[in-house]
């Protein structure tokens, strides 16, 4: 408990610092928020064109689908704000061989390498995503119950932990693998499938892909399960269970991988 309080305090101190820095570059902040908004609009426009041709995609009507897109923006917005700046920095630190300063600090190394920096400009995506979900629910005339809201929030939390764990593993693996692919690119491929409803994965090759992306690397679950709660008013216990287990397992694995990679980085012989 004391540890938890200490890390909360420490995290708040970092939040303060990043906020102070962001405020000193206000122009840049607005610009980037605008860019994010442009991409959001493009995506909305794309689905508007699509739904001009069809009434539903994989059983999702336009506003149900927009709940999915909004949820996707919420989850990726959280990651982009809280995790990505750290992973990008970590990859850079690995490249320049400068993890040293972080490693001499008396705190958990995974914490200080993957969490302290925030990128506030990406937080605007939370606004767009949240707004999209709210507007779609209004159009769908769905007024969620407390249970649905709780299930939704838990789903988002699991999705966040899952993606956080995957990304921190990818970032630290740069110690072993020199990549010409940026961590941003890797993140794009990690979340690529999460923005689509699982129902569209039909056909000879997509069926097994769906199984893999549901049970082995459940990107198809973590976003669609909470989205389904609000869009279809279905609380899938199995889905939430998979998401919870996935988040827990991925987090535990990331702790393990982090520790092993840093040991190797410091030249510990097996």
């Amino acid at each position, binding site marked *: 408990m004391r540890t938890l309080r200490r890390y909360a305090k420490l995290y708040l101190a970092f939040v303060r610092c990043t906020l102070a*820095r962001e405020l000193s570059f206000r122009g840049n902040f607005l610009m980037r928020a605008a860019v994010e908004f442009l991409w959001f609009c493009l995506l909305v426009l794309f689905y508007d064109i699509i739904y001009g041709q069809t009434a539903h995609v994989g059983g999702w009507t336009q506003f149900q689908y927009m709940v999915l897109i909004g949820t996707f923006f919420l989850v990726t917005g959280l990651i982009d704000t809280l995790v990505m700046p750290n992973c990008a920095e970590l990859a850079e630190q690995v490249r320049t061989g400068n993890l040293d300063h972080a490693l001499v600090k008396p705190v958990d190394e995974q914490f200080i390498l993957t969490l302290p920096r925030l990128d506030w400009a990406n937080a605007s995506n939370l606004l767009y995503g949240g707004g999209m979900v709210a507007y779609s629910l209004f159009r769908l005339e769905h007024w969620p119950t407390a249970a649905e809201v709780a299930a939704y929030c838990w789903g988002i939390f699991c999705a966040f932990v899952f993606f956080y764990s995957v990304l921190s593993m990818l970032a630290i693996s740069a110690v072993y693998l020199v990549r010409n692919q940026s961590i941003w690119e890797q993140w794009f491929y990690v979340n690529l499938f999460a923005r689509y409803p699982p129902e569209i994965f039909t056909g000879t090759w997509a069926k097994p892909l769906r199984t893999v992306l549901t049970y082995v690397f459940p990107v198809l679950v973590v976003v669609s399960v909470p989205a389904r709660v609000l869009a279809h008013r279905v609380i899938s216990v199995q889905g939430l269970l998979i998401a919870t287990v996935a988040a827990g397992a991925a987090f535990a694995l990331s702790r393990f991988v982090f520790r092993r990679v840093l040991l190797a980085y410091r030249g510990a012989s097996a």
Partner: protein
Amino acid sequence: MRDETVIDAEGLTRHFKVYRKRAGFWAAVRGLFRREYRLVRAVDGVSFQVRAGEIVGFLGPNGAGKTTTLKMLAGLLYPTAGRATVLGFVPWERHNAFRRQFALVMGQRNQLWWDLPAIESFQLHRELYEIPPGDFQQRLRELTEALQVGKLIHQPVRELSLGERMKMELIGAFLHAPRLVLLDEPTLGLDVVAQAAILDCLRQFNRRYGTTILLTSHYMRDVEELCQRIIVINAGRIVYDGGLQGVVERFGRHKVLRLQFHTAAGTPGPETWNGSIEVLEHRPPLVKLRVERDQVSRLLQGLLAHWQLDDISVEDPPLEEIITDVFTTTAPPTESREPQTVRPAADGGH
């Protein structure tokens, strides 16, 4: 307290495997499939102790193994062989209690938030090291006063000069009252004034807080100013460990003779000096000579018998020069075997 051992290293060794990159296109293509490595013995059996409150200079040319040794002591690297205790801990086990008690400063590597005033970074330090607010304020006041940077801590770090930034780094390093501070090339790239200021601060902090300081440098000046004791490392091995004066006694094979003759006419000509004597300056009536140590007394006897001298002084050559000698004579065998044509003063048959 004074004779407590802070660092105890024995036979520390660190080898690296280095990827050998070949030049050229086809070599690069081949490197795609098969890589060649070569073994570098960065540190090769280093043993020494440091007691509490000491300032020790770690001296050596680039690539001698200074930084690698420092990294092992900071727990950043595992040794290939050997053992070490720092502040009673095995550094590479990286206990939180250990990490709380020391600081690492690496010259030219910035730990402070670049776009923010240094005070913000210091407050982060307070949280990181859980410094009680009262202690934090007091210590910050002391440090800023000592370094005379009171106002600068409220200015964005990027607007500070290199020297000022280094001072901020030092404040950050001493804020949590570490018992040991490891500094890697703290004066690298600084101008002479800033260098002197940094060294002065280190001395002050060492006196005031009794902090043990181990610093690496390849500048002689740093060490000459600051350290009672130096450890000279070359090619991964310690070649000297002791007081400053000891270096001179052990490695200084020459003395500098400054002779003030009575008149210009009564000054021996340059051709008089033969054998191993080197004329550094010939401005009658003043002559400066570089003489091998064991020949000084014989030479002086002869001079006093034949010439009228007003003043004689026998000095040691600058430390810088002595150290350079040490490095050139203890270099790896392949290099020291090469004929030394540029420096006749160096003793080739050693």
